[in-house]
Each structure stands twice: as C-alpha cells, then as structure tokens.
C-alpha cells in the first residue's frame, strides 16, 4: 500500500462511507423499535466497553425479518413486539413480488420499444447515426425527476391524453395513479438504457453477415432471426439487466405516477422510514432488497465478464 499512495484515499473513503453504513444498516435491522432517539435498541454503548458490545449483540434478533413475511409464514407471534401499526397481510412480501413483477414487465415493454429503435438507428445512414444517438442521450442526461413529471401533465385526468381522446370522441382514460402510469413512466425513463447496449451490439455486427445469410437462401425476416437476433443478444441481455435492476428499487416513478395501491419496495421503504419512523424494519427491508438484487446483479456481472472475454 505504501508504494501505491493513490490507493489510500478512495479505499478509506469507500470503507467509511460505503461499507460502514451497510454494517450499520445491518445492525439496525437486527434491533427492535424503540420510542427514543435514535428510535431503535440496542444501541452500541461504547462507554461500557466490551460489555456494551456484548449487550448489543445479545439484543439482536431476526424478528424484523420474520415479521416481514408474517403474512406468508402466518403463525409467528407478532404481538410480542408492538409496532405502531399491524398489518394482517404481508405488505412487504407483496411489495417485493410486485416490484419484481413491475420490473419484469417494464423490461419486456422497454425491449419491445427499444429494440426496433436501436435496430433502426444501426441501419440508418452512417452520417445520421451520431445525431440519432445524441437524441437518445439528451433525455438520458436530463433531469430524471422532470422527465417523470412530464407525464403527470399528459396522463392526469384533465391532461393532454384525455384532451386528445375527447377531441376524437373517445372515452376518457384514468391512467394517473395506476400501475399503467408507472409502466409508462418506467419505460420512458429507462428506455435509453435498453437502446444503447443493443445499438452497440448491432453496430458491431458486420453487415456482410446478413448478405451472406440471404445469399445462402434466407429471406430477410429469416436472416434477422438467425443472424441479427442471436448476435445482438449480448446487447439485449445487458439492456434488460440495466432496466430490470434499477426499476426494482425505483422510488420516484411510483411515488409520482403510481397510486396508493402501487406497491413498490423502494417507495415502501421510504414511507416506512419517514412516515412510520420504524428504522429497524426499514433497515430489514433494505437488507432483504439487497439480497433480492444480488441475484440479477451477479448474473449481470458474469454476463459482462463473459462478453469482455469474448471480445479479447
């Protein structure tokens, strides 16, 4: 380390501001709710030395985790600790599955919308491509919040969409504060993440491969499914992960466009923390969210590594 002075500052910074906070989240998630400041027990009392540390560990339990799944595990005695509120249903469990479902559907829609766009850009005249890619990137750099906000004016009950529908003599739609609005918003903000890797894969593809396929007897559509699609798959997979992973924990879109019945774990966590001030449960929710995310993240990492090796 002494010979690599440049390693010190970022390493220490990350340990202090990335690793330690997680240790704390994990610690709090094992604590019980208390009406105090900070609102959890046990706290680490270093003035008592080792005894304090031991007391803290003795106070840890997995109640918060059990409780998260109370609806599905059923028989656990949740009355032993008295939270401010009690749900009969498995709110958190449902929030996780609903987040996964929303992320999956968003990914599929984004792929259906993004693939043709990436394809069209890759097939556009060479001199137009930088412009088209720039047009994809501009929203990507613009404020996330504003892009979500833009849809409020369109989807709200007195919004532009219903105005247009009214002109056309069609019945009005109620979209805002529903999951439909969440899907639209999610696809909208995460679309560039889908388009860019697919475009990169398609752009790398040698155009003569398609001619070769046609020359050997493929129709254009057959050539697409046998050559273009398999060769763009790495980009498709990368794009899907890049949409799926952040959507799971997304907070802004469900809270601005979703309704009270839109269950997403990021929003639930935020509300748990601020509205209910239940830090232990919020921490437990966060820890489980991490475990949920680890699977796609690890898969994504392995995919990227494989791609890097293939390109060498």
């Amino acid at each position, binding site marked *: 380390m002494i010979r690599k002075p440049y*390693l010190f500052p*970022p390493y220490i910074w990350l340990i202090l501001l990335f690793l330690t906070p997680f240790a704390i989240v994990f610690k709090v998630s094992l604590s019980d709710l208390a009406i105090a400041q900070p609102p959890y027990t046990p706290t680490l009392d270093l003035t008592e030395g080792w005894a304090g540390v031991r007391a803290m560990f003795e106070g840890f339990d997995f109640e918060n985790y059990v409780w998260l799944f109370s609806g599905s595990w059923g028989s656990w005695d949740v009355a032993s600790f008295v939270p401010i509120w009690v749900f009969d249903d498995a709110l958190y469990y449902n929030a996780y599955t609903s987040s996964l479902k929303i992320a999956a559907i968003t990914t599929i829609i984004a792929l259906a919308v993004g693939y043709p766009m990436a394809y*069209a850009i890759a097939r556009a005249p060479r001199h137009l491509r930088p412009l088209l890619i720039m047009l994809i990137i501009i929203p990507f750099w613009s404020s996330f919040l504003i892009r979500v906000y833009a849809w409020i004016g369109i989807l709200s009950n007195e919004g532009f969409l219903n105005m247009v529908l009214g002109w056309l003599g069609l019945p009005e739609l109620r979209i805002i504060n529903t999951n439909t609005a969440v899907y639209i918003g999610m696809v909208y903000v995460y679309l560039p993440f889908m388009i860019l890797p697919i475009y990169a894969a398609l752009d790398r593809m040698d155009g003569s491969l398609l001619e070769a396929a046609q020359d050997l007897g493929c129709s254009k559509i057959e050539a697409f499914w046998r050559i273009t699609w398999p060769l763009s798959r790495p980009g498709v997979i990368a794009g899907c992960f890049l949409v799926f992973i952040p959507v799971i*924990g997304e907070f802004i879109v469900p809270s601005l466009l979703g309704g009270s019945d839109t269950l997403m774990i990021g929003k639930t*966590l935020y509300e748990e923390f601020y509205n209910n001030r239940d830090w232990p449960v919020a921490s437990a929710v966060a820890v489980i*969210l991490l475990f949920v995310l680890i699977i796609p993240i690890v898969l994504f990492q392995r995919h990227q590594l494989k791609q890097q090796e293939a390109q060498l």
Partner: protein
Amino acid sequence: MTRLSRFNVVSLTFGFAFLYLPILLIMVYSFNESRLVTVWGGFSAKWYGALFADERFLNAAWVTLYVAFCSATIATVLGTMAAYALVRGGRFRGRTLFSGMIYAPLVMPEVITGLSLLLLFIAIGLDRGGFTIILAHATFCMCYVSVVVSSRLTTFDRSLEEAALDLGATGWQAFRLVTLPIIAPAVLSGWLLGFTLSLDDLVIASFVTGPGATTLPMRIFSEVRLGVSPKINALSTILIALVAIGVITASLATKRKSG
C-alpha cells in the same frame, strides 16, 4: 429493402415522438399564460418571471450547484485515483473488496444508499445539511468517475508511461506529464457525469439532508406531488435547454477533435 426501411422509419418516428413529446409539451406550456394544464391562454413568459422571483427556488438552485460542484470535484479526484489503482495497481491486498466497493454503488438502489448513509451520519452525530449531501454524492459519483476513467485507462498504451519512466521521470511526474493529459477528456467527462448525477439526485439527498439544505430536485418533488405547476414547467425548460446545449457542444467538440 424498402419494406424494412419503412418499418425502421416508423419505429424511429414513434420512438422519438415518445421520447420527446412529453418534454416538448412541458417546454411549450411553460410559455402558457393560463395556469391550467391543457388550456392555452396565450403566450407569456410570466412563469419564468415568477420562478426567478421565488426565493425558495433560487436558494435551492444555489445549494444544488454548490453541492454538485463540490461533490463532482471530490468524486473526480478520488475516482481517478481509484481507476488508476484498479487498472495500474496490479495486485494488492483487498483488491476484490475494493473493486466490489467501486462497482456496487452503480447498481445500488438509491433508497438503500440514502438510508445507510443517513444511519451512519446519525450514528457518528454529524450535523446534516449541505455537507452531508456532498459526502453522499461524492461517494456514489466517484464510482461513476472511476468507471469512465478506467475504461479510458485500459485502452491507454502503457508503453507511454514506461517511456516517461525510462526517460527519467518519477512515477508522479509520469502520471502528471503523460498519463493525465491523455486521460484528461475522460476525467472531464467523469466530472460532468458526476456533476449531472449530483444535480439530478433526489432520493439520496432527501435522506441525508438536514434543515436548511433543500436541493432543487427536492424543491421540485415537493411541488409536483401536488400536480402540474407552470413554474416547474419553466424550470424544466431551462434545465432541459441547458442539458441539450451541453450535449450538443460536447458532441461537436469531440467531432471536431476526431475529424
């Protein structure tokens, strides 16, 4: 060829309409005299006037720019060091942990990052405000910077550094006189990326902020929860115009350089 081309044109037209129509509507209606969403009450720039007269927005903008500037700068210094360690550092103890800590924040949900940092700041009794936002933003931005810079470093011809060392430069001189000038564009785009991410962040800032430090996204969020606001339309128009100018300038600059 014609049939596929038509398909391509259609998907591009609809795709870009989807991407740009919402933004264009905001921009157009930011000049709307009327307060109502869909009613066009004539052209007016009054909401821009109202925006600039609103102390809360001006304060928030100032806090946001200050935070973004500081955190992007810290993130660029630390991120460049981290990238150098990852690409040039060879083997060192805890390398896996280090690279894990660099890449993890990229995929970490903001709610978790925000929550964990808040719990840390509470645990060590740090007063929350602009300073804690800077710490939080610098942490996740440095990861983005290090990804940008390390991708440049991996394509960088190592023999250039070796030539400098061979000609008698010290390690630091070789970095400062040879490596840094060559990776400078990547460092700059890393800074810009960090700056933009910090400007844009709502969730982490909401967690770690304290009284008195309200950033622009927080201001916007509390405003738009109640619905469409013409003042926010005006603000959005300004922000999007700035980004568009930035992106176009950057792409023209790179074009001139490469062409």
